[in-house]
């Protein structure tokens, strides 16, 4: 209680070191258990039947033949998942997405599911389910979907956020607007104006581990769910609500997670597995195939963005404006809103206006993907910024430095910034050796900046001290990339003990209080705050036990370097008591020693990055190769710098894939053409160079150690940085992501007039 989260500027002994992660050995020996690595006695195999149509009314589903097949133990449809959402439209959408109710809204939308004794039987059973569809016209393109003539995906939705209430339903579910000043006036003061339209295609988070779970529902209303997720507490809430279970009777255990990047913040198969188990009376294991992962989980928005920026001759931006249209799948979303908030967040602008439109399309329900919505907005804005710098005749870094936001700047999304890192990352870029390295033939250099908010949220930590003085740390934020190591470092720092004395685990939902998901770059930020708080609570008890042992007032006992020390001349003879000694005596001083913390980790520090890259373009084929890549990002404080570098490199690599090759390709029939890793082309090892990183540490004033989140910002600049580099290498401005070879070659040919 009374935890003070303010930055204290202490010196560190554990934080900032690079020990081996506690879950490491299990992961290199194959012992670590991921979603699909868990089994229960008597478990059945679950499989989902999915719509092959982009948009169709479900007239009838006949499951009778499938039910009669030997070995089939349960067949379910939407009827087995009745609507218990009680007017909660967001949850209703989740329910409908898990199992289509009246309409199939995209290729891959679940319409029925079976549980059978083995995979072969389950597959056969799916073939025996007869679904009568009435095909409806579909729309998959975001610009097409906005037209008045486009097929309506949901005729109960009217555009929110318009001055006048619309009379007709629309695929545009919401308009949002941000900004300040007067852009019209601002453009009037500009000597140069750049105005361009951009498009980005839909991408998938591309985690290597498909969604997997084992669900076991008992007839007494208790249930267990083993699942790979970014947030098992949130999954518990959602599944309990959708299934009509009591949350506390549903124990959710998060397995090791094989990547999420936002894609495992959302239930898809889990309620289905629970419903199958409930009906069959046996545990059900449900693992998505890769094809299902692409067709029915994830993806991010496809976008269409117009940007206009004006500046004076001296390089001062006078006005900036953007219109952003983001697809949200067939359900209402808030993705364009986020894009509109982040678009100009790097800059100090007197006149700025952004407008976002959320657009329904017949594609899978959009899910968060690492700094969701920000990379596309940054692509459009940073491309235009580069072009404007060129028109003015300024170096792109200098131009950005001149206009960079700083402490006290009113952000483009509203609030005034505290201490922030955009300026320092730009200054670091300016002096980075990469900037001065010579370029080869057909090579171009590009740079770009990126912003992400970072989140906090509800967080719990238990810290239990064993009788032998070893410490177990139970956290509730899923470890997606080494957070158990960083949280152990934080606990070691607070307690003043060795990292090796600690073991961190991710607790299940029955063993710890509620935690928000590991999303919004909050894992280490939030759980380290709770860990610090829990450790400090444990220290209070440790001091109290030492005071008891010495029979002195607790106020005279301080905690230093893992020991209780009696403070004051009069206690000169008392030898310090180590944590181990106090723990050993704990049975006789009041019982087990533990520290707990339940808090809301608010006050996350915003984060900025600047990326530099060199690209070589083959002018005859349009092939683009990344020659060199540098990431500079503010971490606030890097708790485990190696894993911070890993986040920087991983985000950059995902951004590179998005920029160059990754995209959802739909046929005219509205079916996804490339639902596999063969044709959904994420970068392979030989596609990339080493990715250099530079960690800046501008402390977050709202965290005791100054930690900001680091997970997401690194994916924001790459699209633009690469677009700028390709444009410099090929001599033509690229406006459509991904810049696949056919698009680059076509742009080069068009420029040549060929």
């Amino acid at each position, binding site marked *: 209680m009374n935890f003070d989260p303010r930055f204290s500027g202490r010196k560190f002994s554990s934080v900032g070191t690079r020990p081996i992660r506690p879950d490491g050995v299990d992961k290199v020996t194959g012992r670590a258990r991921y979603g699909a690595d868990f089994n229960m006695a008597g478990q059945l195999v679950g499989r989902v039947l999915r719509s092959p149509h982009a948009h169709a009314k479900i007239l009838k589903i006949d499951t009778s033949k499938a039910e009669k097949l030997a070995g089939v133990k349960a067949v379910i449809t939407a009827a087995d998942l009745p609507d218990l959402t009680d007017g909660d439209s967001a949850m209703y959408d989740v329910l409908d997405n898990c199992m289509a109710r009246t309409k199939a809204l995209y290729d891959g939308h679940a319409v029925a599911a079976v549980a059978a004794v083995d995979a072969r039987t389950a597959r056969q059973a799916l073939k025996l389910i007869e679904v009568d569809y009435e095909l409806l016209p579909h729309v998959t393109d975001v610009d097409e979907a906005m037209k008045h003539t486009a097929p309506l995906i949901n005729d109960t939705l009217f555009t929110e956020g318009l001055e006048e209430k619309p009379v007709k339903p629309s695929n545009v579910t919401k308009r949002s607007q941000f900004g300040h000043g007067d852009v019209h006036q601002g453009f009037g003061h500009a000597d140069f104006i750049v105005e361009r339209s951009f498009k980005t295609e839909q991408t998938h988070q591309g985690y290597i581990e498909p969604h997997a779970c084992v669900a076991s529902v008992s007839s007494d209303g208790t249930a267990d769910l083993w699942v790979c997720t970014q947030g098992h507490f949130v999954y518990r809430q959602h599944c309990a609500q959708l299934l009509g279970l009591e949350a506390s009777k549903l124990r959710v255990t998060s397995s090791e997670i094989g990547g999420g990047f936002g894609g495992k913040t959302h239930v898809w198969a889990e309620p289905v597995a629970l419903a199958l188990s409930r009906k069959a009376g046996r545990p059900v294991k449900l693992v998505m195939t890769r094809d299902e992962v692409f067709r029915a989980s994830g993806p991010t928005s496809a976008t269409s963005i117009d940007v206009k920026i004006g500046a004076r001759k001296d390089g001062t931006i006078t006005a900036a404006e953007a219109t952003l249209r983001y697809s949200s799948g067939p359900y209402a979303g808030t993705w364009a809103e986020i894009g509109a908030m982040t678009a100009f967040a790097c800059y100090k602008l007197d006149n700025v206006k952004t407008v976002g439109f959320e657009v329904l399309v017949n594609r899978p329900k959009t899910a968060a993907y690492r700094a969701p919505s920000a990379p596309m907005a940054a692509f459009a804005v940073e491309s235009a910024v580069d072009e404007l710098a060129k028109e003015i005749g300024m170096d792109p870094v200098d131009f950005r430095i001149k206009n960079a936001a700083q402490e006290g700047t009113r952000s483009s999304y509203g609030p005034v910034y505290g201490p922030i890192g955009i300026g320092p990352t730009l200054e670091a870029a300016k002096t980075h050796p990469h900037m001065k390295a010579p370029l080869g033939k057909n090579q171009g250099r590009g740079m770009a900046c990126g912003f992400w908010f970072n989140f906090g949220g509800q967080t719990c930590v238990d810290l239990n001290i064993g009788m032998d003085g070893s410490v177990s740390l139970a956290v509730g934020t899923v470890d997606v990339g080494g957070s158990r190591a960083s949280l152990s470092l934080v606990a070691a720092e607070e307690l003043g003990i060795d990292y090796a004395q600690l073991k961190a685990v991710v607790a299940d939902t029955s063993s710890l209080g509620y935690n928000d998901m590991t999303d919004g770059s909050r894992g280490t930020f939030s759980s380290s705050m709770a860990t610090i708080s829990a450790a400090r609570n444990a220290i209070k008890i440790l001091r109290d036990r030492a005071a008891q042992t010495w029979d002195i007032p607790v106020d005279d006992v301080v905690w230093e370097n893992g020991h209780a020390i009696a403070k004051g001349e009069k206690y000169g003879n008392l030898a310090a008591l180590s944590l181990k000694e106090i723990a050993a005596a704990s049975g006789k001083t009041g019982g087990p020693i533990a520290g707990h913390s339940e808090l809301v980790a608010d006050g996350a520090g915003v984060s900025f990055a600047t990326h530099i890259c060199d690209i070589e373009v083959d002018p005859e*084929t349009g092939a683009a190769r990344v020659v060199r890549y540098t990431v500079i990002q503010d971490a606030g404080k890097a708790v485990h710098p190696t894993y911070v570098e890993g986040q920087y490199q991983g985000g950059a690599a995902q951004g590179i894939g998005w920029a160059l090759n990754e995209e959802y390709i739909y046929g005219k029939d509205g079916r996804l053409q490339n639902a596999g890793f*063969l044709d959904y082309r994420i970068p392979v090892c030989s596609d990339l160079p080493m990715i250099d990183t530079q960690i800046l540490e501008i402390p977050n004033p709202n965290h005791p150690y100054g930690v900001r989140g680091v997970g997401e910002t690194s994916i924001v600049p790459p699209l633009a940085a690469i677009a700028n580099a390709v444009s410099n290498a090929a001599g033509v401005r690229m406006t459509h992501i991904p810049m696949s*070879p*056919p698009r680059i070659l076509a742009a080069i040919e068009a420029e040549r007039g060929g």
Partner: protein
Amino acid sequence: MRYIRPLSIEDAVGLLAGASGTSAILAGGSDLLVRMKGGFVEPDLIVDIKAIEGLSEIRETADGFSIGATVPCAVLGESSVLKKAWPGVVEAAKLIGSKQVQGRCTITGNLCNASPAADSVPALVAAGAKAVVAGPSGRRTIPVGAVPIGPGKTSLTKGEIIEAILLDSQAPRSGDAYLRFIPRTEMDIAVVSAGVNLTLDEHGVITAARVALGAAAPTVLLVEEAAEALIGRKLDEAALERLAKVCAGACRPIDDKRGTIEFRRKVAGVLARRATTTAYARAGGK
């Protein structure tokens, strides 16, 4: 479903010829298992031909090489004699899939899968390779180019198995090369590709040429006009320009998720040109 591993080619042919339902030949399995996984095929009989003696060998014959049907592509890359004689064929084989896939996949399987984008096929066609087909009525040897007759379709009849691929000894002053275009650096299916085999005279004048394009038509395309553009000439800029133009013109590609018609045409010309330059150098041309 049955899985059978016969020990002789006669047994294998007999099993396939006598099978009542769908049957499939399993060598490397890198196409078959993918199709089974996707539910595109559910064979009643799988005939694994890897235990058949001789099928897993690369033999040097009086005429050249005989590459058994079950030799994984990785093994082709480990044969220094083959690599020396037919570097283009080997580099094509070594481009199929990943290292993992190369440990399993075979050029015979690549041919029989009959994908227009098969990597090894244009190189084999350019090299003038032949396929030895064993069947219920005995053996026949046919040009490799005669095997695929459309996407996913071959000219093989029920009970027939390709036993081996034959490559002649490379003629003096000859060289071959294969290039494909893929968006990434590895792991992709060819968007378009070109295999080239050239023979020169003592003065570096091209006396024989075979240029084959992949993913440019429903089946591999042997471009006669491309050969005509090269034969009787040294490899000058004009010949290369003409070659690229002819190859681009010969393409009958489609628009799909991997590339556009326009892109495939242009890049076919570029690749033909680049592969020809490599083959010319390998043949000793300067």
